[in-house]
């Protein structure tokens, strides 16, 4: 496919490249990243550019790789009036996301006890196939979770008042309607609130090294300092969200002929946002998104209990505060300027993170002056990053940036290269203690199976769609 370099870090696939494209596709990245992208990414992002009501351009972030329908790293905005909503632009794991938690603990205090800490977390936080969660909910309580999100947790004692403002959309996206959720989705998700899941989901203990703080002033605002221990949680809405995605994929697959919509890939099944199917899915998706915020909140509650037990101190005394929580599989109604005109759009972020710049009213006051915290998770071997949103992201990428490092190797290929037990040993030698439900699953997540996180973060920093603040180094990891 023909790519035209339009600036140092942006490549364009013009809308003449494929029949049916309504807008061009833009690929964000360094030359090295773009040269190494699979051809499938270009196919998928240009398929997205064909969807009805898309505005300005279909975007692919530097961590892009082939997904279903949309590529992972795909961002697309559609007019709320005249555009579509597509489950394939969100992913089955609705509101999969990252939460970063700070502590007042130092490396010196935690490093000698990291095995004990990770073992305790591993035993207390359910993970892997069939794991049952920390909450025992009735269906009517679960409906409250869907509507109230993190407010429900705070009411029930699973969170602190101050957690709320440190979560994207304050942990409660408006518009949830549990009547649009199937009984199957509720049955699937009811027992799973407070579980990590499997695959690339994890809970990680990380440290801040002095040389890895790139912006000390913003780091200070985010409560991050040298020699500090932090924790990162990566998971989503579990079976509840997966079932909602599946239910509506089937609904949209059958509904498209009624709306005269043809797509190049069945995973791009969609419906007009204002249609009954589109509205029903949006309302159900919001239920799953709020449940995902709750899932991460309940896990944090357990993390607070475990750290309190291990260090014999109150969680508040340990400074176990949320830095921020971001969704990276979601569609949100936002206002953006498109071709000089401010309009309401539905921004799909599939493996992409919101990155709102300084002054945006959606950012809580504590961070408004500097911008929204952005959390980009790397592989368990290479580390992760905390960045900050920028004004340029508002102009260039609908306030979006990358979400992770992006896979470059199949799961089977990774397993052929290393056994889980061998990888665990190798990581331990490098100061990362890991516990995993499955050793073969662990091998699939080896660092060499992913792009270099430093390259991805360097790219988004240079493009200016988020700015790096601090790199976080893992010392302990729990995998489902």
């Amino acid at each position, binding site marked *: 496919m023909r790519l035209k370099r339009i600036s140092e870090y942006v490549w364009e696939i013009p809308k003449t490249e494929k029949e049916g494209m309504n807008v061009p596709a833009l690929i964000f990245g360094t030359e090295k990243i773009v040269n190494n992208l699979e051809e499938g990414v270009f196919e998928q992002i240009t398929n997205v550019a064909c969807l009805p009501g898309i505005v300005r351009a279909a975007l692919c972030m530097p961590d892009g790789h082939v997904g279903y329908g949309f590529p992972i790293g795909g961002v697309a905005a559609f007019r709320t009036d005249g555009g579509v909503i597509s489950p394939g632009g969100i992913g089955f794991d609705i509101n999969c996301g990252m939460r970063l938690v700070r502590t007042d603990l130092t490396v010196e205090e935690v490093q000698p006890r990291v095995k004990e800490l990770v073992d305790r977390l591993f035993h207390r936080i359910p993970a892997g196939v069939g794991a049952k969660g920390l909450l025992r909910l009735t269906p009517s309580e679960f409906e409250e979770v869907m509507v109230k999100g993190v407010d429900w947790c705070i009411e029930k004692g699973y969170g602190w008042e101050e957690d709320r403002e440190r979560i994207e959309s304050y942990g409660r996206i408006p518009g949830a309607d549990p009547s649009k959720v199937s009984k199957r989705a509720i049955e699937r998700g009811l027992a799973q609130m407070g579980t990590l899941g499997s695959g690339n989901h994890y809970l990680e203990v990380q440290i801040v090294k002095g040389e890895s703080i790139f912006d000390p002033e913003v780091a200070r605002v985010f409560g991050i300092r040298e020699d500090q221990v932090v924790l990162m949680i990566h998971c989503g809405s579990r*079976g509840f969200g997966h079932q909602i995605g599946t239910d509506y994929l089937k609904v949209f697959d059958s509904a498209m002929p009624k709306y005269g919509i043809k797509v190049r890939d069945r995973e791009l099944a969609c419906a007009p946002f204002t249609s009954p199917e589109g509205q029903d899915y949006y309302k159900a998706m919001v239920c799953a998104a709020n449940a995902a915020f709750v899932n991460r909140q309940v896990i944090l509650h357990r993390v607070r209990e475990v750290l309190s037990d291990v260090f014999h101190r109150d969680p508040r005394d340990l400074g176990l505060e949320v830095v921020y929580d971001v969704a990276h599989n979601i569609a949100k109604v936002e206002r953006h300027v498109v071709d000089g005109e401010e309009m309401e759009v539905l921004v799909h972020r599939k493996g992409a993170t919101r990155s709102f710049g300084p002054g945006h009213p959606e950012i809580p006051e504590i961070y408004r002056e500097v911008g929204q915290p952005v959390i980009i998770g790397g592989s368990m071997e290479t580390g992760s990053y905390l960045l900050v949103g920028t004004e340029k992201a508002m102009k260039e990428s609908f306030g979006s940036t990358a979400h992770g490092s992006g*896979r470059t190797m199949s799961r089977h290929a990774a397993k052929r290269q290393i056994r889980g037990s061998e990888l665990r040993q190798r990581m331990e030698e490098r100061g990362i203690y890991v516990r995993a439900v499955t050793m073969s699953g662990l091998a699939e997540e080896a660092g060499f199976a992913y792009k270099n996180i430093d390259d991805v973060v360097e790219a988004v920093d240079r493009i200016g769609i988020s700015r790096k603040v601090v790199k976080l180094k893992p010392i302990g990891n729990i995998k489902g």
Partner: protein
Amino acid sequence: MAYSYRFVEDLCFTDVGFEVEADTVEELFVASALATEAVMADVGKIRPVVRRDIEIKAEGLDMLLFSFLEELIFLKDSEGLLFSRFDIMVKDSSLKGRIYGQPIGEYEGELGRDVKAVTLHQFEVKKRNGRFYARVVLDI
């Protein structure tokens, strides 16, 4: 009577894809079910001690297979069950049968990856060279 399944890396390297070939449509469904369960567990170690009766209807054979595999994923999360034996009948676009497996808590083998969903990515069910063929990608 024969069936086989094989995992295919380049169908979608971030997740798990497999291809199935079988002499009959029932065998195609059984082999697809075994492949799906094999992602989550060692099928040979799932003892068939619990039975569930299932009945599924869908528009077309492809969506029937999609819904059948989706049912297995649903039962894994809602009831915590893994399956290893499938006695099913497929007629037109409906499936009826009994499936046998074991609660995850009683399973003694090593668990694998959690399957989130069946996808429509490169999804295909067709007759090829006189046999039934399916291509499935699971989101994990």
